């Protein structure tokens, strides 16, 4: 028995996008860290920063490569599996995607060649410039993708042309489309999530070096750079994240109600620390701050908040408990990152940071936190928008490719599952090899390898 095409297509999209979303945030975050490291090298001329930069360029290359390959899939998956959606939003979504390609992705990939292969070919200033351009390119990329997705959450600057099967959204105001009500908040939220992903990867690997007493001259300053980034942005995320939640309250009340499992519109709404939603009984149980959600939105603990009951049955998010759980996991992860970074800063100030073995072990595992946070945040946003693919305008079930059969989707889903599993194994294997190899020896080994190949290779004598 085959499943429904809609379910299969949604599983495939969720799977491919969730896998893809491991990598671009790491590229953006590492981009920021690389700019800082290389900037320090140019400023101080200290070899430690040079080795640090070159080591992280190697890790960056690995991550970027997988991000591009899995990203190309995403661009075409709208057409392959969601043809009706593509026709409906093409007029709007298309200009954002085209701008992404030409302004952001081309910038990023163009200068990537110099970032990765140009260390000895261009001056250090030109190389630094390329690093900055790659970082900017990855940030701009995120802008256009988040704009397009935000338009699906809070459509603006458009009108609907045609009816039924031929209906589609046409743009009326480009800037209103770009600055739709949720763009700015979500943009900042995603950027900061990405910075945290990069910072915690650097923290994790360097904490491991410190525990193993390896490469200490490089690991300690690198850890401090990343800790600074992590502290600043985990705190900033608290502010930006709650702004984003306020936006959801205003623009997508059904999603907000699902996020907190709130059903009854006449009542004040609590804020849960954790809990469980019983969809049949329309109840939520758990640890809560009474009136917390009312306070967050209206500044009044007793204000009633619109609950799920005030929406038609077929316009409520179908998986309320999933939205609730993903949202609360994201929050828990965000709080953990703040506590962990502040704790580390306190020991840093006391001068005992690198003596605390237990803390270093926590940091080794902390690399998972922003990854879990980023994925859960997107799951909240996307599952919470259901049953709509474009909020209030187009249902997900109406957005499919009518010509694609369940068999075809099963075929591609199996291919993706196999290839991505292989990709993940290879990625972890190579990342581990690079980590084991370490920053200090990387350049030296290469020089040796290079000298060796030159000696034995008549092709390279000129």
């Amino acid at each position, binding site marked *: 028995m085959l499943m429904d095409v809609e379910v299969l297509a949604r599983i495939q999209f969720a799977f491919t996008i969730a896998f893809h979303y491991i990598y671009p945030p790491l590229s953006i975050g590492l981009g920021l860290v690389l700019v800082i490291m290389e900037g320090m090298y140019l400023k101080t001329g200290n070899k430690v920063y040079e080795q640090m930069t070159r080591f992280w360029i190697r890790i960056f290359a690995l991550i970027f490569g997988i991000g591009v390959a899995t990203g190309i899939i995403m661009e075409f998956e709208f057409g392959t599996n969601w043809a009706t959606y593509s026709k409906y939003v093409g007029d709007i979504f298309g200009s954002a995607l085209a701008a992404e390609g030409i302004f952001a992705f081309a910038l990023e990939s163009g200068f*990537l060649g110099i970032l990765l292969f140009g260390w000895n070919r261009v001056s250090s200033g030109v190389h630094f410039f390329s690093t900055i351009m790659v970082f900017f390119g990855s940030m701009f990329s995120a802008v256009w993708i988040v704009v397009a997705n935000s338009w699906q959450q809070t459509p603006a600057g458009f009108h609907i042309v045609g009816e039924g099967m031929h209906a589609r959204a046409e*743009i009326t105001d480009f800037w209103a489309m770009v600055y739709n009500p949720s763009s700015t908040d979500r943009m900042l939220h995603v950027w900061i999530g990405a910075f945290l992903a990069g910072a915690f990867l650097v923290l994790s690997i360097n904490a491991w070096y410190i525990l193993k007493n390896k490469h200490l001259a490089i690991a300690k300053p690198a850890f401090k750079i990343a800790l600074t980034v992590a502290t600043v942005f985990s705190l900033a995320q608290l502010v930006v994240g709650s702004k984003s939640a306020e936006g959801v309250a205003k623009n997508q009340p059904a999603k907000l109600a699902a996020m907190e499992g709130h059903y009854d519109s006449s009542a004040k709404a609590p804020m849960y620390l954790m809990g469980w939603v019983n969809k049949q009984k329309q109840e939520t149980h758990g640890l809560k701050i009474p009136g917390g959600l009312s306070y967050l939105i209206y500044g009044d603990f007793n204000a009633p908040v619109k609950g799920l009951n005030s929406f038609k049955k077929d316009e409520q998010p179908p998986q309320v408990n999933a939205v609730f759980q993903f949202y609360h996991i994201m929050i828990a992860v965000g709080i953990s990152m703040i506590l962990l970074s502040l704790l580390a800063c306190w020991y840093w100030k006391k001068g005992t940071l690198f003596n605390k073995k237990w803390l270093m072990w926590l940091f080794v595992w902390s690399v998972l936190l922003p990854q879990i946070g980023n994925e859960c945040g997107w799951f909240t946003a996307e599952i919470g928008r259901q049953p709509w693919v474009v909020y209030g305008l187009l249902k997900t079930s109406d957005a499919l490719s009518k010509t694609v059969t369940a068999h075809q989707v099963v075929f591609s889903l199996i291919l993706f599952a196999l290839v991505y599993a292989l990709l993940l194994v290879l990625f972890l294997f190579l990342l581990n090899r690079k980590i084991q190899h370490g920053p200090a020896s990387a350049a030296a080994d290469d020089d040796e390898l290079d000298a060796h190949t030159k000696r034995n290779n008549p092709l390279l004598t000129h």
Partner: protein
Amino acid sequence: METFLGIDYNIWWFLVFGAVISGYAILDGFDLGAGALHLFLKKEQSRRIAINAIGPMFDGNEVWLVIGGGALFAGFPVAYAAIFSAFYVPFMVFLMGIIFRAISIEFRSKEPMLWWRTTWDIAYCVSSIVIALTLGLMLGNIALGMPLNEAHEFSGNWLYFFNPFGILIAITTLALFMLHGAIYLGMKTESRLYTKLTILAKNFTIFFVISFALSTFYTLLYIPHLSDEIKTHPVLFVLPLIMTLAIANIPRCLKKRNFRLAFLSSSVTIAALLILVAVEVFPNLVYSPQFPANSITVHNAAASHKTMGILLTIALIGTPLVLLYTIFVFWTFKGKVKLDEMSL
């Protein structure tokens, strides 16, 4: 109709899209071709040089595919939706090829073991061939046309795409890319490897000429709608003429070891071939031979004029920037490949 310099917006965007696709075919064409002939190179050192000759470029080249996809989605959403849902199976195979290729280039150099490198060499070569063939298959079928219903959706079975014309164009594309790739590698390498590539390039020229001649005969015999423009407007014969001259120029340049001019000739060949297809297909984007009224054209598939205006603005600002740093990157890595510590 909104116009710019007297030409309709929709037609401008068709030109932009065509230019991006040609750019993609010329740029990714050489690295795909280099991949497809990879196993002809036997020595580890030669393979390493070949990989490093495309290493800094292939990501930038694939950007053109991303821009092309975005350009089609933005300007002709109906065509984007129809084409990719119709080509579901071949396109998924194409995408797997893209992933495998990127990871084989990335992973090959990471371990020194012979079995590791051989495995990735094979993956790199096979995925490059698969990408070239699926691209050709899709181009062939777009030129040929496919059954479409009233909603401009594909109404056939995916096995339809494996028709003789589609397969011929697939093979022709592979041959052309291999020729193009061999010339590119020749431009970037030295001494013995260089001699070997000269021989390969000559053989691929023959391979291409034969497959192209077969496709041409097939078109003239069985697919009248792909030759009527050129028959009614004899001035268009200048296109096949340019192509013939460009192809004939390749062996001459190879003999003189002028790889740059040879590369220019194979680039011109690719562009002329695509322009020829575009001229014959226009104003259709996807032709429906059974029910021509259901064909997807640059007019019925187009986005609104407002969006077209925005897109043309984006293109006018963006294209010079992209060209600027593409040239900068090529200039930085100009000349023969030298393996150094940053090499793959």
